[in-house]
């Protein structure tokens, strides 16, 4: 039985019927507004897995950007190091927080400048299909 949840409010979550990432819920999705001309934006969200098996997101893309990457930040010896993760794993009946200072969706080369109130579409690809997420752009801080 496949469940597709539509969450309301600030988060609008559209799904592709029949091809969704089963058990995956996305909340608190947002993209941080950056200065005009910025070459990269950071996206944040909380991913929940309602299923019994780990949920692996193998890649992401966006019609609004040339590429989307999964990045982690590691602090070591006072240095912040940014690493690229090849996938994201949400544990069974658990969640993965993509949050500032720890990890982000790296949105590379925007098609245009985005401002507070705009919405960015990001597609998450997992083994059972694709989930399209609308991420509102917010002022950072």
């Amino acid at each position: 039985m496949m469940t597709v949840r539509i969450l309301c409010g600030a988060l609008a979550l559209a799904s592709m019927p029949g091809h969704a990432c089963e058990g995956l819920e996305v909340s608190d999705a947002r993209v941080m507004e950056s200065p005009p001309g910025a070459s990269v934006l950071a996206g944040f969200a909380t991913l929940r897995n309602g299923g019994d098996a780990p949920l692996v997101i193998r890649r992401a893309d966006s019609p609004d950007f040339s590429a989307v990457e999964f990045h982690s930040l590691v602090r070591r010896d006072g240095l912040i190091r940014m690493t690229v993760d090849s996938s994201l794993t949400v544990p069974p009946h658990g969640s993965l927080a993509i949050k500032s200072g720890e990890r982000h969706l790296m949105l590379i080369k925007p098609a245009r400048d985005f401002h507070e109130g705009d919405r960015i579409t990001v597609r998450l690809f997992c083994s059972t299909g694709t989930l399209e997420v609308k991420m509102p752009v917010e002022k950072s801080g």
Partner: protein
Amino acid sequence: MIAAVALTLGMLAWREQAERARPLVSGSLLPQPRPIADFALTGDDGRPFTRAGLLGRWTVVFVGYTHCPDVCPTTLSRLKAAKARLDADGARLAVLFVSVDPERDTPDHLGRYVRYFDKDFRAVTGPVDALTALGRQLGFVFVTNPGAEGEGYGIDHSAELILLDPKARLAGYLTPPFQAETLAADLGTILRKRVAR
């Protein structure tokens, strides 16, 4: 009676000392500020920026680059919020963004970038060797990370805020993670400090 007066004077002296030595919530001050040698960078107005540009007020230095998606914009936003909480005192504080990505961060681009956060923020950059030399003096490091940003590169960099006193001396550091409230408290503390000759 004499003992009481002595005690009161002692308390006053202690309070003054405590005010001057008040510890920072999220960082530390050097026991003695450390003078820094002159340097030659370029300001976001395209003109030379040297040590003299730091004289006369407290400066908070943050090291980064504009292709940095999370840490740099977040820190600059928090600095803006902290400065706003300091009201008029905030005007006595300079915020300087040091870009360690001179290849991509032109002065003009840097100016637009920092002033998106606050019209009074300033930015500088310069040749990598000049930045490395300044880093040695101020205690920051940066390393190019070819894999970190899609088709380009990322730069791993120090995330501390570096505090420089009005005599352009290294005074201390604030350490992340930064919150507007604690930043404002710490910046308020340093602005109240008297700077010894």
